[in-house]
C-alpha cells in the first residue's frame, strides 16, 4: 500500500467516491423502454444511458396551492416527454409549444425522469415540516469536501437520462419553461456514461471500471425502496484531479482502487465479476485494507445492510483557473436510509488513499418520490394531500 502522500492528509479525510457494493454483479435490466407509470420512478433502477442531466431547483411558489400546481406541471411535462408525441399545434395563439430540438414529433420511450425533494422544502413555507420524509436531511459536509454553496442542496432534484444529449437538453428546457414562476434552477451538471472499454462495466475518468457490483433483483427491495415506494437519493459532484492521477504509477492506482485497471478484476481475481475474497486475505497482501473496494464494501454480514445502488456518471465541463481540466464524477446513489447506507460507507472511506485525487464540491441529499401510479397521479400527491 502506498502511503507516500499520507503526510498530506493529516488526521482523517473523507472521500466521496463511489462505494463498490454487492455480491451480485448483474445490474438491472438493460431494456430500453422506460415506463413512466409505476410503483417506483423507473429512472432509479435504469442503468445510466449515455447522457444525463442532474439539476437542482429552488421552489419559489407562493403557497401550497401553487406548489401543488407546480408538481402537477412537472408531472404533466414528464409524462409527455417520456411518452413522446406531437406537441399541440397552437396555430396563431402562441409561439410553438415545443422547442423543436427533437424534431416535429418527440420520440417516445428513451427519456427517464427522476424527481427528488430536498430537506429545505420541508420548512415553514408550505406547511410541510411534519411531512418531511423520516430520514431526509441536508447533505453532510465530510472532512475532505470543498463544497461550493451555490452548487449544493436545493428544494428539488431533477435527473434526466437518455441515449442522446439532445433528448435530455430538450427535456430540461421543456420542464423549465413550464415551471418558471414556480421554481428556478440552482445548479446543474451534464453527465455521460462511457461505452464499455472494451467490454463490461463502463469506466470513469480515472480509467477504472466504476459500478461493477450493485444490488440487484430482490436485494433492491431491502436496500433501495422506502415503504412508500420512494428512495433516498445522494448526489455528489466530485472533481477528479486527472492530471495528478495520470502521474501516479499503475500499481499505486490499482492498490488504491483494489482492482486491475485493464480488466476491472479485483486484485485477487481474473474477471471484473469475480468476488473479492477479503476473508482469505485478512492483512491485505493481495487487496490492500485501505483500497476503495475493501473500505466501501467489506462484504461481511455486518456491512451488507449498508450497500447502495450506484448510478454514477462522468462529467466534463471546461478548464480550471490553473489550466487543469474540470472533469470528474456525478456520483448518484439510491438507498433506504442515508445514514445506515451512504454515510456509513463514507465513514469507512474516510482515510482511503484515493481521497487525495478527488475533490467533492457539490450535490445534495434528496428524497426520490414514489412512482406515478397512473394518469391521475402526480409527484408529491401523498405529501400535498
Amino acid at each position, binding site marked *: 500500500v502506498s502511503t507516500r502522500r499520507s503526510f498530506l492528509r493529516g488526521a482523517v479525510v473523507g472521500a466521496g467516491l463511489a462505494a463498490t457494493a454487492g455480491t451480485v454483479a448483474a445490474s438491472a435490466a438493460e431494456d430500453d423502454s422506460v415506463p413512466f407509470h409505476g410503483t417506483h420512478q423507473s429512472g432509479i433502477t435504469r442503468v445510466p444511458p449515455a447522457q444525463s442531466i442532474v439539476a437542482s431547483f429552488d421552489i419559489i411558489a407562493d403557497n401550497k396551492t401553487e406548489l401543488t400546481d407546480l408538481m402537477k406541471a412537472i408531472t404533466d411535462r414528464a409524462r409527455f416527454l417520456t411518452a413522446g408525441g406531437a406537441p399541440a399545434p397552437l396555430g396563431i395563439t402562441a409561439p410553438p409549444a415545443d422547442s423543436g430540438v427533437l424534431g416535429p414529433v418527440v420520440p417516445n420511450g428513451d427519456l427517464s425522469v427522476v424527481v427528488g425533494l430536498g430537506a429545505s422544502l420541508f420548512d415553514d413555507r408550505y406547511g410541510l415540516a411534519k411531512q418531511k420524509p423520516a430520514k431526509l436531511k441536508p447533505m453532510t459536509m465530510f472532512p475532505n469536501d470543498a463544497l461550493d454553496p451555490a452548487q449544493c442542496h436545493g428544494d428539488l432534484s431533477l435527473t434526466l437520462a437518455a441515449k442522446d444529449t439532445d433528448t435530455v437538453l430538450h427535456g430540461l428546457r421543456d420542464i423549465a419553461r413550464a415551471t418558471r414562476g414556480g*421554481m428556478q434552477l440552482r445548479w446543474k451538471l451534464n453527465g455521460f456514461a462511457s461505452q464499455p472499454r472494451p467490454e463490461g462495466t463502463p469506466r470513469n475518468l480515472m480509467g477504472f471500471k466504476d459500478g461493477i457490483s450493485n444490488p440487484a433483483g430482490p436485494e433492491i427491495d431491502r436496500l433501495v425502496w422506502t415503504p412508500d415506494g420512494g428512495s433516498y437519493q445522494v448526489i455528489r459532484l466530485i472533481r477528479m484531479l486527472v492530471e495528478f492521477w495520470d502521474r501516479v504509477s499503475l500499481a499505486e492506482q490499482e492498490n488504491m482502487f483494489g482492482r486491475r485497471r485493464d480488466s476491472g478484476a479485483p486484485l485477487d481475481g481474473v474477471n471484473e465479476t469475480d468476488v473479492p475474497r477479503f476473508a482469505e486475505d485478512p492483512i491485505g497482501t493481495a487487496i490492500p485494507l485501505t483500497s476503495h473496494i475493501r473500505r466501501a464494501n467489506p462484504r461481511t454480514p455486518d456491512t451488507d445492510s449498508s450497500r447502495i445502488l450506484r448510478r454514477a456518471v462522468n462529467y466534463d465541463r471546461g478548464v480550471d483557473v490553473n489550466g487543469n481540466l474540470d472533469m470528474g464524477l456525478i456520483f448518484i446513489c439510491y438507498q433506504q436510509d442515508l445514514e445506515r447506507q451512504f454515510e456509513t460507507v463514507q465513514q469507512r472511506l474516510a482515510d482511503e488513499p484515493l481521497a487525495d485525487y478527488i475533490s467533492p464540491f457539490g450535490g445534495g441529499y434528496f428524497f426520490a418520490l414514489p412512482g406515478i401510479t397512473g394518469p391521475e397521479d402526480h409527484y408529491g400527491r401523498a405529501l400535498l394531500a
Partner: protein
Amino acid sequence: VSRSSCGTGWTDPNPGPQTFRLRNDGSVTAEVDLIDPATGVIYGEVEGLGVGTTRPLQVTLGNGEYAFRCLPEDTGAIVGPKSTVTGGAERSPGVAPVTRNDLLGPLKTYQQHVTEGLVDLVTNTAKLKDTVRSGNRQTSQTAWLTAHLSYERLGAAYDAFGDLDGSINGTTDGLPGGTADEGFTGFHRLEYGLWHNEDMSALGAVADQLDANAHQLQQSFGDSQVDGNDLGLRSHEIMENTLQFELTARTDFGSGTNLATARANIDGTRAVLEVLRPLLQPRYPALSTVDKWLDRTQADLDGTHKPDGTWTPVAQLDAKQRQKINGDVSELTEQLAPIAAIAEPRRVS
C-alpha cells in the same frame, strides 16, 4: 393554392390531429389560413408559401366548419370550399386575426402615450444637464436616476428607437475601448462618470449631448409612426430586455439601479398592454394570468425600493429574493410571449 382556387384537395374531413400538405401552384407567394368561414377565426397558418413549394400545416380539428383562405401577394383573398368535421371533440376556441385596421386605434393611443413620455424625458434630461453643470455630484446622481427612468418607462426595447437609442442608452457592448471609448455616450456614460468620481466639469459635455439626443428623439418620434408589428413585439420584448440586461446587472455602470429600471420597464409593458387590451380580451384567455404576474413582479420589485428612496443593487439581493425576481420576470415573459403571436397584424382580404 393557385390564383383561382384554394384548398381544393381536402376531400375527407376528419377530427383530431391532422397534417395538411399545402402546395402553391400559383405564380406568386401566398399566405394560407385554415379558418372557420362563418367567424373568420384562424386555426392554422402558413406564411410565405413560395411558388411551387409544399409545406405541412399541423392542426387539431374539432367539430365544426372549416375552409382554407388563400392570400396571394397583391391579390384579394380566396376562400375555398367548406368542409364539415363531425364525430370529434368540441373545437377549442380559436383566435380571430388582428388586422392592421384593428391596430389603428391602439397605435394612435400608444403614440400619444409615448409622446407624453418624451415630454417628461426632455424635461428631465434638461434638468439633469443643468444639475451636472452646477457641479453637485449627489444631486446629479438623483437627477440622473429620474431622467433615466423616464426613458426606461418608454419601453425602448430592441431598437424601438433606432440609432438614437444607442446614443441615449447604449452600453460598452461592441466598443473596443470600453468605458473610455469615444462611442460610449448617453445615460450609461454619464452614470459611469457620476459613480466613478470623474471630474464633474468633464461630465457637462456628456450631459449636454444626452439632452440634445433626447430632444432629437422627441423630434423624430413626432415625425414617425409606430409600426403595426411593434405593439405585439414590445409587449414581451421590454421584459425580455429586463431579464437579459437588468436582472444580470450587465447594464450597471455604477449606480446599482437595475431594479429601478426593471420597475420602470413594468410601467412600459403595462402601457403597451393597456392599448392592446380591447383586442386581447376576446383573444387571449390567459390575460388575467399576465395581470397577476405583472402585479406580483411589480410588488417584488417594489420590495427592493428602500425607504430612503434608493434601490437595492442586484448583487446585494439575497439568493432567495433574487431567485424570486428572476422567476417573476421569467414567468411574466412566458405569459407575454403569446401576445406577440396574437397581435401580429394579419390580412383577411
